Every structure is written in structure tokens, then in C-alpha cells.
């Protein structure tokens, strides 16, 4: 309130007291001259003003118009005071009249407008001429006026000396404005009501501003609340995820680290203590300290890896020595990362405890080595066994046959040279000796053949089985001489096989068939194929003496014979050879027969094509 300060400049003579003017003059002095001097000059009238409302409110209405009249000695002094008072009143009147931001007016005890200042005209739109004498009810909106608000305000001011309030008021042109109103009762010395002072301010703008402010404050608060909620949710999620990460790192025996290149300092995240076997808080703080925990052999590679990480992502397995001297394998993966300010480059990475894995790998390696060793050992054993077997068959081939030859040779010479001197029994014995040596020779040859089949590396090439069978039949010409044999060879497929070994199969099967059909005329021997369970099966069938099917499974064993030697000669090795060849080709062989009604040998060869892919040679009777 600069103007107030100026008004009561230190040079001004403080008024000692005065009577409030009672004039009904238009330009009567407004009662509401605010004064900061209140309290210091209790003898000066202190009508309520906007700035002194609170203080004024506490004051008893009877105290308001203060009349101080002291008998002063000396007329001159009194005149001076009057003079000064007059000047002061003039100034006040002027101030009131020209105050533009306040409507300052006086009402008569009935509420009619008695004085009107410039501010009132500006705010309410009426000129003094238009409004003086009119009831101030016209300033109220119709509703409020009808509700008796103007009268209530006056009544309150009259009763308590003051009324203050805010509300909508109406200008002359009907527009509304938000008014702050103070009404004060004016009384004379006897307490008679002289009227009311009324000060009105247009507070529309500040009210709007206030409202806007309140609204924006409310919005802001709502947004802050929203943000706070978001943030706490985010913090919760973060905490949760950090917790999960921590748990996961612990479970995975993983810890991450950040290493500053400039300072060499290392920051650990996760359960580094567990990985290094250290107590919490004693973790290596620098690369150098970290290196001291590393197995001496792995320090250099680790250092090299970390320095390489500046340029390229690296990974390395290294060992740390725990305080208990146990070595643990860690796997490090790291790469450089520029800090956000772009100035410092840091190495970020993870350490994973892979001790268990390394242990497992070591075990696997050891197992593999052991396995390899055992395989090598076994192979060596087998090679030795194979060599032994080879030298055995070689010996058999060489050494067992020699004595037979000698026995046969000398028996023959004995027969030739001394035959005439020998009686028939002695000659028969010599014949038996020779027969037995011959049989023994066949046995040895067959056994050697069987051994050779097992030893031989198979050469699989497509072979025309029909041609193979025809050739075998031709080779058997000596055995069929003088016999009536009906060969029935169906078209057979071309099969990938070892033709030499398959030739032996057919030779053995066909000569077997020939042997056991010896009592038949004609002997019927059929070679063909049929489909059994979706599989092509080859067969050799005859109308010979057959065999008891109860012994069918014995047929393919070495030295197994189902017929007496006197009836059908043989060593019992032929079918064993057949079995071995078929088995080595990945096929199966079996026999079906009935005594006296012939026998049939069936076998399969993997890769045998289905019907319609016969070889070029057509089958037929030989």
C-alpha cells in the first residue's frame, strides 16, 4: 500500500482526532481509508478496508467512530490542526473519488445510493446521476435480489457493524461480474445509524484465474498421483524383476560385472561371492585383485581376453582358486560398452560357474577314453584271435592234410605192391583206411571253406541270380550224369550280393537237393521266388526224402546231419556255410520239409526287388 505510506509520510502531522463528517454531500469522505498506522494511533478513525478486515472485524462496532476531543490550550494550535485536517480531508476525498479499481460509495440507512465514485462508475457502468438515490438492490442479480440478499447484507452490517462477502453482481448493461463487497455501518456519536459505506471490487478475473489455477492444480495433483502410481508400479516391477534376476543368477551360478577401463575398478552384480567362494564384501574391486583369485595358469589368457574385449566380444573358460584352494571353472563372456556420456568405455560381461559341466565333460572324456581304450583292447584281442584263427586254419590247411595224404599214399602203395599177398580182409581194411582219410580230407576242406566264408570281405555287386543258378547246374553235370533230373528254374531277380558266395549257396543247396533226390525218378528240383508277408523269398525245393521238421533248426549247425552217412554222404558243413553266407548278407534262411515228401529251403536277401525285375537269363529245365 504505497499510497498509504506516502500519505502518512514522516513529515505529516498526525491528526490528533476528528469527528467523522456527517455531511450527506456527494463527495462525502469515504469511511474506508485503510491505514497501516492502526494500533499506533488509536485516536484516529480506522474504518475497515480490504487490507485491515481481520483486525477491524475483531473490533467492537462501538469503537469504530472514535471521537477524541481534548481541550487544547491555545486557539492557534487548534486552528493549525483544523487547517491540517481540512487539507487531509481534501486529499482523502480526492483519493476516494478517483480510485478506479474500487467502487466506493455510501448508502443511506435504507440502502439507497448516496455517493458514487469514479471506480463505481467504471465497475458498475452507472453514472452518479443515474444511480444516486436508487436502492443498491439493483446491483444484485434478480434471483439474489428477490431472495432478499441485499437487505440481509445491510442488516448484518447494521447489527455487527460490518458485512463482507463475495458474489455475482450485475452491471448496468446486465453483464455479471464477481464482486468482493464490504459494507460498514456509519454511526454518529450517539450510535445513530447514518448509513453504510460500501466498497466493491471486480474480482472476476482473479476469480477466474483462481478457478483456473485450482483446476490446473487439481489436474496437476491428479497427474502427480497418476505418475506416482505408475512409478510405484514400475518400481515394484523393477524390484520384482531384480529379485527374479538375482534368484536366476544365483540358480544359474551367474554373476555379471562392469569393469571401468580407466580406473580398472570392477563392480559385481549378482552372486559373485558364491562364484569366488568369498565372503560378501571381500569381492575383488579391481582387475588386479580379480586376477589374484585366478589360477596362475589362466591369468594370462584372462588378461588377454579382457584386453581383447575392448575391440570384440570375447569368451574364455578359466579357473579361480577359492580360499579352500579348490579350483572352480568359470566361463566368461564379455564385451566393451560405451558409457552413456560417451566418454568412458567399460567392459561388461558375465561369469558363469561351469565347474559341474567341466566335471561332467571330464567324466565324459574319461569315459570316452576308457571306452576307446577298451575298444582298442577288444580290437587287439579280436585281431589276435583272428590271427590265431588264421594261423590255425593255415595249419589245418597245411599240416592236417599232410598226414592224411601220407596215410592214403602208403595204404595205396601197400595195396599195389603187396595186394596179391594180402587176404581179402586186409585189403578191405586198407580200403577203409583210404575211405576214412578221404572223408577226413573233405571235412578239412569244408571246414576251411566255412572259415573262409566268415573271414572273407564281401563284394556286393548286382548279380543275376538266374544266371548264377544256371551256371551252378552246369557245374553239377558230373553228379547228374545218368540221372533223370527235372530242373525247374523260375526267372530270378538281379540282387546286389557277393556272387562268389551266392554261387556257393546255390551249389550247396542244389547238390544237397540232388543228393537227397537220388531215390527219385525223376528228381524234381525247383528254384524260384514267392512273396511272403510283403517280402520276396527265394527257394530251392525238391521231391527228395525230406527230413523230420522237428530237427529243422539243427540243419544249419556245423557237422549237423539228419541222415546216416551210409545213406547220404556228407560232412554236415554245407548248410552251415549257406547259413553263414545268407546271414552275412543280412538275410534269413529256413527250411520246411516232411519225411518222404521233399524239402524246401527258403532264404531272403535284403534289397531283393519285387516281382517283375528278373535278370536277362530266362529260366528253364536243364
Amino acid at each position, binding site marked *: 500500500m504505497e499510497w498509504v505510506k506516502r500519505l502518512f509520510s514522516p513529515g505529516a502531522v498526525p491528526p490528533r482526532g476528528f469527528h467523522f463528517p456527517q455531511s450527506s454531500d456527494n463527495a462525502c469522505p469515504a469511511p474506508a481509508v485503510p491505514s497501516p498506522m492502526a494500533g499506533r494511533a488509536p485516536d484516529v478513525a480506522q474504518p475497515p478496508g480490504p487490507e485491515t478486515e481481520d483486525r477491524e472485524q475483531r473490533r467492537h462496532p462501538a469503537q469504530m467512530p472514535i471521537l477524541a476531543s481534548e481541550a487544547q490550550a491555545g486557539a492557534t494550535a487548534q486552528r493549525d490542526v483544523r487547517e491540517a485536517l481540512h487539507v487531509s480531508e481534501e486529499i482523502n476525498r480526492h483519493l476516494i473519488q478517483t480510485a478506479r479499481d474500487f467502487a466506493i460509495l455510501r448508502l443511506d440507512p435504507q440502502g439507497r445510493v448516496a455517493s458514487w465514485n469514479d471506480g463505481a462508475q467504471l465497475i458498475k457502468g452507472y453514472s452518479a446521476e443515474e444511480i444516486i438515490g436508487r436502492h443498491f438492490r439493483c446491483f444484485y442479480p434478480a434471483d439474489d435480489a428477490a431472495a432478499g440478499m441485499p437487505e440481509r447484507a445491510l442488516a448484518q452490517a447494521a447489527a455487527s457493524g460490518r458485512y463482507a462477502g463475495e458474489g455475482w453482481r450485475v452491471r448496468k448493461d446486465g453483464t455479471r461480474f464477481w464482486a468482493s463487497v464490504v459494507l460498514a455501518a456509519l454511526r454518529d456519536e450517539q450510535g445513530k445509524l447514518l448509513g453504510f459505506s460500501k466498497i466493491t471490487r471486480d474480482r472476476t478475473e482473479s476469480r477466474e484465474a483462481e478457478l483456473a489455477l485450482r483446476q490446473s492444480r487439481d489436474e496437476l495433483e491428479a497427474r502427480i498421483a497418476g505418475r506416482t502410481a505408475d512409478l510405484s508400479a514400475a518400481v515394484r516391477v523393477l524390484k520384482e524383476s531384480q529379485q527374479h534376476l538375482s534368484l536366476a543368477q544365483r540358480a544359474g551360478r551367474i554373476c555379471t560385472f562392469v569393469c571401468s577401463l580407466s580406473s580398472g575398478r570392477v563392480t559385481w552384480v549378482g552372486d559373485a561371492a558364491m562364484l569366488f567362494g568369498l565372503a560378501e564384501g571381500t569381492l575383488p574391486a579391481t582387475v588386479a585383485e580379480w586376477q589374484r583369485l585366478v589360477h596362475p595358469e589362466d591369468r594370462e589368457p584372462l588378461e588377454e581376453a579382457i584386453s581383447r574385449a575392448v575391440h570384440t566380444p570375447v569368451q574364455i573358460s578359466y579357473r579361480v582358486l577359492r580360499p579352500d584352494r579348490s579350483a572352480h571353472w568359470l566361463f566368461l563372456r564379455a564385451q566393451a560398452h560405451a558409457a552413456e556420456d560417451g566418454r568412458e568405455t567399460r567392459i561388461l560381461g558375465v561369469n558363469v560357474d561351469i565347474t559341474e559341466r567341466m566335471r561332467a565333460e571330464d567324466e565324459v572324456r574319461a569315459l570316452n577314453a576308457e571306452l576307446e581304450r577298451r575298444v582298442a583292447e577288444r580290437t587287439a584281442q579280436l585281431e589276435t584271435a583272428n590271427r590265431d584263427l588264421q594261423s590255425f586254419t593255415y595249419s589245418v590247411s*597245411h*599240416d592236417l592234410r599232410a598226414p592224411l595224404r*601220407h596215410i592214403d599214399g602208403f595204404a595205396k602203395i601197400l595195396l599195389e605192391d603187396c595186394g596179391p599177398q594180402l587176404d581179402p580182409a586186409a585189403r578191405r581194411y586198407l580200403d577203409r583206411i583210404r575211405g576214412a582219410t578221404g572223408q577226413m580230407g573233405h571235412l578239412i576242406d569244408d571246414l576251411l571253406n566255412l572259415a*573262409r566264408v566268415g573271414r572273407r570281405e564281401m563284394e556286393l555287386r548286382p548279380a543275376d541270380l538266374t544266371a548264377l543258378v544256371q551256371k551252378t547246374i552246369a557245374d553239377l553235370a558230373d553228379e547228374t550224369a545218368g540221372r533223370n533230373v527235372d530242373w525247374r528254374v523260375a526267372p530270378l531277380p538281379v540282387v546286389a550280393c557277393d556272387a562268389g558266395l551266392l554261387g556257393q549257396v546255390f551249389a550247396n543247396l542244389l547238390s544237397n537237393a540232388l543228393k537227397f533226390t537220388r531215390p527219385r525218378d525223376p528228381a524234381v528240383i525247383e528254384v524260384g521266388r514267392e512273396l511272403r508277408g510283403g517280402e520276396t523269398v527265394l527257394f530251392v525245393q525238391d521231391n527228395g526224402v525230406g527230413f523230420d521238421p522237428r530237427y529243422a533248426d539243427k540243419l544249419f549247425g556245423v557237422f549237423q546231419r539228419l541222415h546216416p552217412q551210409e545213406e547220404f554222404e556228407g560232412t554236415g558243413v554245407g548248410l552251415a556255410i549257406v547259413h553263414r553266407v545268407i546271414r552275412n548278407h543280412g538275410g534269413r534262411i529256413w527250411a520246411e520239409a516232411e519225411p518222404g515228401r521233399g524239402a524246401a529251403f527258403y532264404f531272403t536277401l535284403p534289397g531283393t526287388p519285387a516281382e517283375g525285375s528278373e535278370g536277362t537269363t530266362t529260366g528253364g529245365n536243364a
Partner: protein
Amino acid sequence: MSTEVVEILLVEDNPFDVELTLLALRQNQVVNEIRVVSDGEEALDFLFRRGAFSSRAEGAPRLVLLDLKLPKVDGIGVLRALKGDARTRMIPVVVLTSSKEERDLVESYEIGVNSYIQKPVDFDQFREVVHQIGLYWLVTNQNPRLSAVPVARKAP
């Protein structure tokens, strides 16, 4: 040593085999001069005229009947030495053995054997085989004049 001209060298360690082979040869009217040695080393000494045979008269046999299973140097070793030396390379060698092992057969032929025959158990068949050998190598087959081939001489 004798000065006779050896026509057949029989390399055989088994005396029974020697006896039967000689019998078979004689019965087949092979009357040529036959020399028997009982191991590979002796065979090589004879052929290269060294050791006990250093004073042997010059001249290579017309046929070598070679067993494979022999003491000291085996038949394959003898064959290799003979066929690997220019002086003896052209002497016909017939392997006469109990074995018909594939590897012996293949190896013998790789070295350059002239015939490979497995001795049959049956003496009749053996006699027939010996007859064929004698007939073929000593009568039917034409040899270069082996006597003209320079054989190791003793230094004068």
C-alpha cells in the same frame, strides 16, 4: 660234391612227402636226375651254388618243385629270391603244397610262380598230378636253354 646235372630240385622237408613224391615221379617214368633238399636255405644254397653247394657244377635245374612250409627260409622266401634274381628268374618253379590258402596262392603268383598245385589227399589223384607236372614241364613245355644262363661261379 657230385658233378651230375640236376634236372629236378625237390624242396620238401617232410620225408613221407619226399618218398611219396619220388615214388609218384618214378611210377610216371620221370627218370631225370632229382635232387632233394629239406629246407629253404639249402635250396637257395644249391641254386646259387654257395655253402655246401659252392663246388657244385654249373647249371640250373630244369624244374623246381617247391613246398611252401619249410624250415628256415619258407617257400615264399625261396620263390622271391629265385624270381628276384636275373640268374635264376627263368627257372620254372611249381609250388606243390598242402595248402590252398588264397593268400599263398595270390602271393606266389604275384612273385611269379609258374604253377601252383595243391597236393590231393587221394594218392591216385596225387600221382596223376605229378604225372601231369612231369609231362608238361619236362616234355611239353619249351624252356630257354638254362644251361646258357650264367650262374654264379666260384672265383678262379
